[in-house]
C-alpha cells in the first residue's frame, strides 16, 4: 500500500512540475509587462548611458525574451532569485527569513479551522431537527460571508482593544528576543528552552491564526453536516446499527469516515486560500512573514522579491493540495488499485 501511495505522490509531483513552470512563465511575463524598468531602478541617478547599457548586458536584457526566461529560470533553480532592490540582499535569503513565520501561522490557522470545523459539523448534525438548529444555521451562514481581514479587525477590536486580552502586533513582546535557530519561532523557543517566550509567541499567534481559520470554519461545518446527513441514510449505517454497534460508534466510525471524504477535498482547496489569506492578515497584525515582505516589496516596486514571493505562494498552494490528495487517497480505498 505504501508503495502505491508513493507512486501516486510521484505522479502528482510530475503533474505539479508543468504547473509550476506555467506559474513561473506567468510571473515572468507579468513582471515584464509592468511599466517599471528594473535597470533604471537599480542604478544611481547619476549613471551614464554606458553604465546602463553595461548593466543591461550584464542582466541579459538585450537577449531574446525566451532566452531571458531560460536564464531567469536557471537562476531560480539554483536558488538565485536575484537581489532585492530595496534591501540589497539576496531575495532567497529574505524569503528564507520570513517564510517560516508564515508557515507557522498558516499551519496553526489550518489546525484551528480543523479543530473547530469538524466538531462544529458534527454538532450541527447532532442538532438536526431541533429548534436550535435554525439559530446555528443562520449563524454559520452569517459567518461564511465574512472575509478573513474583517475577522482580523474584529478580533483585534474585541480581544485586543476592548478586553485587552491578547496582543495583536508582531510575534513577541518588543522587549523579548529569541536567537534564531530554525526560523520557526515556536520551535526555536523550545530549542532554547525559553518557555515564557513560547507562551508569548503562542499568545501573539492566536488572533491572526483564528482570523485565518474563521473564514474556513463555517464551510467545513456545513459541508460535513450535509455529508453526514447523506451518509446516515446509507445501508451500511443501518446495517451497523442492526449489528448492535452503539450509536456513538456508528456516527464516529461508520458515518464520519465516509462523510469526511468530501470535506477533506474542500479543506484542500480552502487551506490553499487560507495560505493566500496570510497576506492581508500579516499586514493587519504587523506579523513579519512572507505576506508583509511581499506587501513591502509591492510598495517599493521591488520586483525580485515580488517574483520570489509569488513563486513561493504558488508552490505552497500546490504542496498543500498534494498533501490533501495523499490523505484523501489514504482514507478512501476506492481510489486505491483494485487487487
Amino acid at each position, binding site marked *: 500500500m505504501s508503495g502505491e501511495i508513493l507512486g*501516486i505522490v510521484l*505522479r502528482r509531483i510530475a503533474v505539479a512540475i508543468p504547473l509550476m513552470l506555467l506559474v513561473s512563465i506567468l510571473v515572468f511575463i507579468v513582471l515584464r509587462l509592468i511599466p517599471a524598468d528594473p535597470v533604471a531602478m537599480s542604478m544611481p541617478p547619476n549613471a551614464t548611458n554606458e553604465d546602463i547599457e553595461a548593466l543591461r548586458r550584464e542582466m541579459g536584457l538585450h537577449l531574446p525574451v525566451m532566452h531571458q526566461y531560460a536564464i531567469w529560470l536557471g537562476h531560480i533553480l539554483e536558488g538565485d532569485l536575484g537581489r532585492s532592490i530595496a534591501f540589497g540582499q539576496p531575495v532567497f535569503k529574505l524569503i528564507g527569513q520570513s517564510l517560516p513565520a508564515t508557515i507557522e501561522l498558516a499551519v496553526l490557522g489550518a489546525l484551528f479551522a480543523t479543530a473547530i470545523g469538524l466538531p462544529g459539523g458534527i454538532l450541527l448534525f447532532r442538532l438536526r431537527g431541533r429548534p436550535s438548529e435554525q439559530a446555528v444555521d443562520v449563524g454559520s451562514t452569517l459567518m461564511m460571508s465574512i472575509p478573513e481581514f474583517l475577522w482580523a479587525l474584529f478580533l483585534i477590536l474585541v480581544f485586543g482593544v476592548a478586553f485587552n486580552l491578547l496582543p495583536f502586533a508582531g510575534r513577541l513582546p518588543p522587549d523579548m528576543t529569541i536567537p534564531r535557530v530554525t526560523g520557526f519561532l515556536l520551535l526555536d523557543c523550545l530549542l532554547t528552552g525559553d518557555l515564557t517566550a513560547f507562551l508569548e509567541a503562542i499568545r501573539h499567534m492566536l488572533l491572526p491564526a483564528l482570523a485565518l481559520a474563521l473564514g474556513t470554519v463555517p464551510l467545513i461545518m456545513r459541508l460535513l453536516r450535509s455529508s453526514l446527513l447523506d451518509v446516515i441514510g*446509507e*445501508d*451500511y449505517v*443501518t*446495517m*451497523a*446499527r*442492526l*449489528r*448492535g*454497534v*452503539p450509536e456513538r460508534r456508528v456516527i464516529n*466510525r*461508520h458515518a464520519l*469516515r*465516509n462523510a469526511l*471524504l468530501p470535506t477533506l477535498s474542500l479543506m484542500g482547496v480552502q487551506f490553499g486560500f487560507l495560505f493566500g489569506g496570510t497576506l492581508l492578515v500579516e499586514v493587519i497584525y504587523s506579523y513579519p512573514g512572507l505576506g508583509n515582505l511581499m506587501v513591502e516589496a509591492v510598495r517599493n516596486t521591488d520586483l525580485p522579491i515580488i517574483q520570489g514571493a509569488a513563486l513561493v505562494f504558488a508552490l505552497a498552494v500546490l504542496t498543500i493540495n498534494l498533501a490533501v490528495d495523499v490523505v484523501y487517497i489514504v*482514507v*478512501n*480505498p*476506492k*481510489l*486505491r*488499485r*483494485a*487487487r
Partner: protein
Amino acid sequence: MSLLALNDVNVTTEAGGRRIDVLRDVSLAVGRGELVGVVGESGAGKSMVGRLIAGMLPKGFATSRGSVTFLDRDLLAMAPRERTGLLGDAIAFVPQHPMTSLNPVLSLGAQFDEHLRRLGQDGKAARRERALAALDSVHLPRPADLLGRFPHQLSGGQCQRALIAMAFAGKPDLIVADEPTTALDVITQARVMELIDELQRDSETGLLFITHDLRLAAQHCQRLAVMYAGEIVETGPAAALLSDPLHPYTRSLVAANPGIAGPVRRLAALPDHMPGLSGFADLPGCRFAPRCPVRDAACAAARTALTEVVPGRFVRGAGACRKQASALAGQDELPRAAADAAAPPILSVDGLGKTFRSGRDWLGRRRAPVVAVDGVSLDIAPGEFVGLVGESGSGKSTVARLLLGLETPDGGRIVVDGQDITGPFQRTAKQRIALIQMIFQDPQSALNPRQRIGRLVTQSMEVRRPPARWPERLERARDLLGQTGLPQDTIGRYPVQVSGGQRQRVNIARALCTAPKVLVADEIVSGLDVSVQAQILNLLLDMRAQRQISMLFISHDLSVVRYLCSRVAIMNRGQIVEQGPTEQVFRAPQHDYTKALLAAVP
C-alpha cells in the same frame, strides 16, 4: 414455545391528521430452527415487521397495541440499551442490498473484527481466526485474501455471503433476512438461498425470510405468512399455501405468477393496485375489499380476523373468503401465436458487435476494452415477441441501445422492414422513429416529471414537420390511453400523480404513438409487483392480438419470457449462446449456461 412471537401488533403513525395502522393485528411466530417466510407486494409492511423486531421503527411510527416476545421476554418493554444489546448477537440481520450494506471505507477484515469484538471475542488474532472460519463456512474461497479487501472489490454475491457469515457468526437465535437475494442475479440468488438453507439446517437458528417472491419463499420455508396492506391475510404450511391458496389475495398472487413449466394460461390479474399508506385509513374493514373478486356488501366495513379455515391454516376475512376456497377460476390455455414463418422478418440483426474502449481511469491507466455485444444475430417476424434473456451485464441493454441508435455498432447490420438503419442516430433518426421504439426500464426517470401525461405520450409528434396541432395530439393521446387501459382523466395529470403500474402504461403508450413496427422493451416489468406485472403482460398480449406488433422483450425473468414470447435468445457475456422456440429451449436446453439459468428458477 416459539422463539419469536408477535401478538396482535399494531404499528401506528399519523398522516394528514389521521391515525393510520401501518401494521394491523399482526401475529406471527418463529420457532427454534424454523424458517418462516413473510410474503407480500411492495408497501405491504414486510420491512416494517423487520424494523419492529429490530426496535428501529421510522420516526413518527410507534407500536400502539400488542406485544413482541423473544425468548419469553417482552421486547417492547425492554430498555433500549438492552434491546440494542440483542442486535447482531441474539438477533441478526441479512440486508437487501449487500453491495451497499458494508462500509466502503473499511476493509472486510476491519468490519469483521468490529463485529466479533462486539460479540465479545477477545484477542485480535482469535478474531481473525474466527473471521476466516466464518468466511470459510459460507464457501468463500481464499478468505485470508478477502479480509484485506474493500467492499467495492467484491461482487454482490460475495458481499452477501460475507454478510451472511457475519449474521451467523454469533450463533444468533433469530435471523431476519429482508429480501436477501432481490439484488442478485438468478443464479447467484439460487446459490445464496442454498447457503442460507444449509447454515440454518446446521444450527438452531430461527429464520424470518422476508420476500416479495412467493415461489422462492415456498421453496425454502416451512411456513408462510402472506401480507397485504399491513395485515397478514393468510398463514399456513408453505407447500399447501402455494398449491392450494385460500385467501383471494393469495390465490391471485399465485394466479398472477406465470410458471416456468406446465400449460401457459392467461394470467388472472387483479384490478388496480395495493393502496398506499394514506389509503389505509379509508379501509376500516377488509383492506383487500376494493380488489376482491368475491367480496360482498358487508366486507368493506366488517372487522376481519384470522380464522382457522383448515387445521393449521388461517385466513383473514369476514366474507366468502372464510369458507374453504373454491378452485381457481380456470383460465383458458393461451394459444401460442405461431409467427408466420414464410413472411420476411420485420427486424433482422446480423453480426452486431460493440466494444467499449472507455479511455483511462483517474490514474491514467488504460482500461481494458469491454466487449459488450459480440456477433449477435437475431430475426423477429411480424407479430412475434422474442425474448432476450441474460444476467445483468450480459449485454442485453446494449443490444437495445444499438437497435435504437443510441449507440453506434462497431460491426453488423440492423434492418427493419427492409430498411437498413445501422448508421449513427442522426442519419437514420427519421426512419427509426416510425419503425422502432423503445419502452424504458424505469418509467419514473424516463418521463419528464414536469409534463402532463397527454403531452408526454404524444411527444414524438413534436418532431414532425410541420408540428402536429394540439387538438390532433389530444385526440391521439385519448386513443393511446384507451389502448393501454389508462383512465381518460390521466391525460391532464403529471407522472407522479399516477401509480407505478400506470406509469409503465404511460411509457408503453408513448412508445406506441408513432405506430412503430417493432418495440424494444428493456426489463419493463422488473420493478413492478406481480399483480401489476400481470396486468402489463396481459396488455402486451392484447396489443399483439389486435395489431401485428413485434417486440424484442428483454428480461432476466424466465417465467415472464415464457409467458410472452414464442422464441427466446439466451445471452451471456455479449454473445447469444442459444436461441429457439421458447418451449423447446426451456424443455431441453442445450447450452450449459441455459441449463444453469433454468435450474436456478425457484
